[in-house]
């Protein structure tokens, strides 16, 4: 039983990292992006390909995957300067589909529809982290959640800095922000790069853990699921995003977790999942936790009271 729970925790952690990245773009900056699965795919395939071709270690590959995904984030981030709202969403959706389609057809590099299923096992302090071994699972959980915590911390630092305030200004009113002297182009592309690199790292971890990847995994539905995590928790709130990732992963594995998956028709699992989405949105449209807004007025008041005393 515990192994099964570990696996779910591992996937939750991977999704949480990708969702944290997407939240930067969608939640904090207000740009609707539908291609996080594309960045995850790029990360996963970069790791798989370079580990096999150049015998690099997993952790170096992971960083490189983050960089490669960031490069693609830059490429797809550029059009965001011109496109607004749903047109941007479509451009990113198209990009995600292109990534999957190219992977599917570029047989000589990506092995096409077969996927890559001989990814060497990552090593941590000399210990092999094999997907099939039970001893490695708790270690995987720990590693992935440490990376997730690190991403969380970095995003928190970023958001509480000048950058975060600039992003918030762009989200609330882009034109006003730019007239305040904020270089919106720089920030928007930057946020795309950051979001993409987190997606790439999540993908790399996915490849490292599963040691087998196939192109169909990284489809549009995966982007949507990650978007659901971001929205369900509460936009523009990293903590809520992590909660969203946990809820969505658990909800989709719920029948297996409570041991009824083989007793009910499999479609009902999915129907149940759909119902959870609809009901959550109807009763908590702002997300389970919602956006945490800094109440500037209150802070200011306290400051003044404080100094008066």
């Amino acid at each position, binding site marked *: *039983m*515990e*192994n*099964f729970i*570990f*696996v*779910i925790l591992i*996937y939750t952690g991977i999704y949480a990292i990708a969702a944290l990245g997407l939240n930067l773009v969608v939640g904090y900056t207000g740009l609707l992006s539908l291609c996080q699965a594309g960045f995850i795919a790029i990360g996963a395939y970069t790791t798989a390909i370079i580990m096999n071709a150049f015998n690099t270690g997993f952790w170096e590959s992971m960083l490189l995957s983050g960089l490669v995904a960031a490069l693609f984030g830059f490429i797809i981030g550029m059009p965001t300067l011109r496109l607004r709202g749903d047109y941007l969403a479509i451009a990113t959706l198209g990009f995600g589909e292109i990534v999957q*389609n190219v992977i*599917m*057809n570029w*047989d000589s590099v990506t092995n*096409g*529809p*077969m*996927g890559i*299923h001989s990814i060497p096992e990552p090593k941590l302090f000399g210990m092999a982290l*094999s*997907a*099939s*071994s*039970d001893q490695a699972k708790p270690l995987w959980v720990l590693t992935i959640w440490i990376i997730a915590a690190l991403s969380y911390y970095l995003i928190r630092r970023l958001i509480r800095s000048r950058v975060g305030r600039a992003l918030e200004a762009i989200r609330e009113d882009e034109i006003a922000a730019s007239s305040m002297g904020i270089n919106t182009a720089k920030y928007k592309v930057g946020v795309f790069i950051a979001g993409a690199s987190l997606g790439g790292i999540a993908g790399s971890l*996915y490849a490292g853990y*599963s*040691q*087998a*990847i*196939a192109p*169909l*995994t990284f489809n549009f539905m995966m982007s949507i699921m990650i978007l659901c995590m971001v929205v369900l928790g509460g936009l523009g709130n990293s903590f809520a995003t992590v909660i969203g990732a946990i809820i969505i992963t658990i909800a989709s*594995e719920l029948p*297996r977790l409570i*041991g*009824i*998956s*083989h*007793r*009910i*028709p*499999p*479609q*009902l*699992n*999915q*129907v*149940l999942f759909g*119902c959870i989405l*609809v*009901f959550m949105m*109807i009763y908590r449209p702002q997300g389970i936790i919602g956006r945490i807004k800094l109440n500037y007025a209150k802070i200011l008041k306290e400051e003044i009271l404080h100094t008066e005393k």
Partner: protein
Amino acid sequence: MKKLLVVIFSLMLLSFFACGKPSDTLKPGFKIGFMGPLTGDDANYGKLMSQASKIAIEEFNEKGGFRGFGAELIVEDTQGRVEKGNPAIEKLAGVDKVIGIIGDVFSTVSLAVAPKAEAAKIVMISPSSTHKDLPDKGKFIFRDVINDDLQAVVFAKYLANVEKVKTLAILYIKNDYSQALAKAVQDQYEKEGGKVVASETGLQGDKDFKTQLTKIKSKNPEALYIPNYVAEIAQILEQAKQLGINAKIYSADGFSQPQILELAGSLANGVIYTQIAEQPASNARKTFEAKYEKKWGEKPDAFSLNAYDGTNIILNSVVATAEVIDGNLKIDRDKLRDEVAKTKNYDGASGKITFTENGDLVANIGIYTVENQKFKQIRMFKLEGQKLVELK
């Protein structure tokens, strides 16, 4: 909305009671898992195969199980996806503690979960994963479906040397099954001196192949090879006719799903395809097919025959190796694996089954066709070295 929820929940409860009971008289003994897509685009393949495994388990229990211990089938949906397959096998291994698994349906998922099955000492017999690397994943990993290479080599040799077809066009889908067969046939056919004039691709889920077929038509090939699943094959057959393509059409074991007869109607007549050869002397296939149709109201495909045989091989091996000590059932997983590996000339519904040393299937290949809306085996071949030998 509330009403809808009530309906859904009552449905769930209903099905919970409906199919939850293993058997009334038997003691719970051991569990066998089934992994495959039960939702999503390819759900029908998983459904047909899991139904076949269910029949095998029921037959076993009806016969009294093993000294009063019954078997239970745990069906897990993988949606044909690696990331759903991993939790599924952890659940089967950790929670249900299955001794064997029938699955996965897709090569990509089988390849991903095989190391786990190996580590947990679960005998895994895939009824439909044809990728050549699968049996090398471990000693507990088997398959009772013909691998791409064997099927493709026999077919290409048959096409070039027996039917003497000179030019071939191939239309395949970008999925693991279709592409592997297409590539392997292309290689072998060219080695035999044939000419592949067009090799066109489609995407998973595509239903419109007119563009590819229009291109193929302009190359005017003698034959068209479509190693796909039936939903696509039916479309290709129909659209090929609409575009006026006269090439003779060939396919592979994916064609064997009886639904093709419904979907393609008379267009299915005359298509030639390959599948494990049916033993002329054996009634196993006919008996199973009749039983399957009676129980589920539909006919099984070739992969379901494999799923049924795979389940039976595991069950028989349990009977051969299990012991009852102090009223408890003891199954030694290593012994079970060795017993499965020893399988030789097993007279199954799909044909004669023998496992090679690494767990792959040795089988004779049948050449089948459709005549008056009925599948029919017309010839039977086996490969001896590189030579095609016809069996009578």
